[in-house]
């Protein structure tokens, strides 16, 4: 009986330590709240690097969080792309939302839940997961263009991708009609 009590006490103690550890790092919130998990993943997986327009701030280039995750600004006129060579095959614009390379010109999508312009407005959770898995728009259409690193994100679990989708559904909607990509040579 003494042995059993000792084991039970040890188990409870370890569980308490584990809970405290998880709570102090926010991991418990991520485990119990998919939106919190989604927020964590979006903030640590580089989504803002391209889907939030960058500007020059007091600390140098930084994402303009007033336009968080709204993609390439529709009102931003971009000039002709630079001449690229074999040594330098692609380039980005100052907001880090437009890129030119052998694929043409690509613009980062508006990930906010704006009902008119958000790229996810017609995309179900399943289609979002398929999109990241196979790199196709809506999970079955045209290829997603570089530099979207879906080949890395496709290794996420369904649960993590679902959490990202859930988080993106409840952030502030920002109307911004991102232009269609341009074919090479335009």
């Amino acid at each position: 009986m003494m042995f059993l009590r000792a084991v039970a006490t040890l188990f409870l103690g370890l569980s308490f330590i584990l809970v405290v550890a998880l709570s102090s790092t926010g991991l418990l919130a991520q485990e119990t709240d998919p939106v919190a998990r989604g927020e964590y993943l979006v903030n640590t997986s580089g989504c803002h690097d391209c889907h939030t327009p960058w500007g020059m701030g007091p600390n140098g280039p930084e994402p303009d969080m007033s336009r968080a995750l709204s993609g390439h600004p529709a009102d931003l006129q971009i000039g002709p792309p630079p001449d690229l060579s074999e040594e330098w095959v692609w380039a980005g614009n100052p907001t880090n939302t437009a890129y030119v390379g052998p694929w043409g010109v690509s613009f980062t999508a508006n990930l906010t839940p704006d009902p008119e312009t958000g790229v996810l407005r017609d995309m179900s959770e399943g289609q979002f997961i398929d999109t990241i898995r196979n790199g196709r728009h809506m999970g079955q259409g045209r290829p997603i263009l570089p530099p979207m690193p879906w080949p890395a994100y496709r290794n996420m679990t369904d649960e993590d991708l679902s959490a990202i989708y859930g988080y993106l559904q409840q952030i502030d909607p920002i109307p911004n009609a991102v232009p269609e990509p341009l074919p090479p040579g335009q």
Partner: protein
Amino acid sequence: MSVPIIARSRRTGATLGVALALSALLAALAEPVQPSLGETAPADLFATGLYTDPAARTVDPRHHVFSPQYPLWTDGAAKRRWMSLPPGTRIDASDPDRWAFPAGTRFWKEFAFDGHPVETRYMEHLGEGRWIFATYEWSADGQQAPLAPERGRADAWPLPDGRTHAIPGRTDCRVCHGSGPAPVLGFSALQLSPDRDPGAPHAEPLPLDAVDLAVLVERGLIANAPAGPAPRIPAADPMERAALGYLHANCGHCHNDRGALADLGFDLAHGLNDGTAAARATSFGVALKDPPAGLPDGVDLRIAPGDPAASALLHRAGSRDRLLQMPPLGTALVDEEAIALLARWIANQPRAGDPAPQTEGDNR
């Protein structure tokens, strides 16, 4: 001091319970995190059971050869197809557009170019709607057919105009096979109808030993098959029949009214109970909501009756620009024969007077 047997059992049980709980906790912590990239497939085509004698490429005679009347365009590839049902099982055809296959059903489709097999695609039903999708790529000498890489194989075979055939990745399989009401696409009442369409683009002569719907019924391999005449697409004329059949086979697996894109309200699949052609109803005069990159200015209708040049469907099916082309995968060459057919069919339609415009997605 002796311990009563019941108390000792409880103590042992409690100890075991704690140990199991700890083990479960540790196991959960140690479990590798894996994405859901699909079911595990046999490592080699020869392990799927297609052949009784792999060395001689002797196909198991118990498998059923079949040939859909409206074949999918794959850049002119020659195809051979087989399916296998577990002994004593039957296909449930209660839903004529969504046959239910028993667990253990297998399908194979071999793609050959210039007389050389390049790949053989494989589907196996694990039960409860779970399917294995895999592709096996043939070695140059035709002696081996290992599982293709998970992401597929680009440049698997040279095609005209500098294009190449690409072996699809496993997630690519699901793009087509996971987008409609049923994952099996070319094996259906319409596709196996004995009333085959002689005008179908790239119609294949029915192999001598092939099964069709009548044979499947006769052999008792289908339950609840609908009675009545052989399935046939109702159409104004043979040209329209062939055009609607082509759209059904090449576009309808994504563009239908029961799959992931149903909200688009763009249905190119032919349902056996459709009184009128859904393709006409959902495309003639219907405006595009989000015109894709590369579409010429002024092309803003899915199909403009009487005007092929103003019909987005024709531009997309006639393009192999990766941003514009339809289907978006599985083909690198335009199907010129089909484009000519579709252009004639559209040109043959009376121009609408001034219809009230519908907009893509209105029935969302």
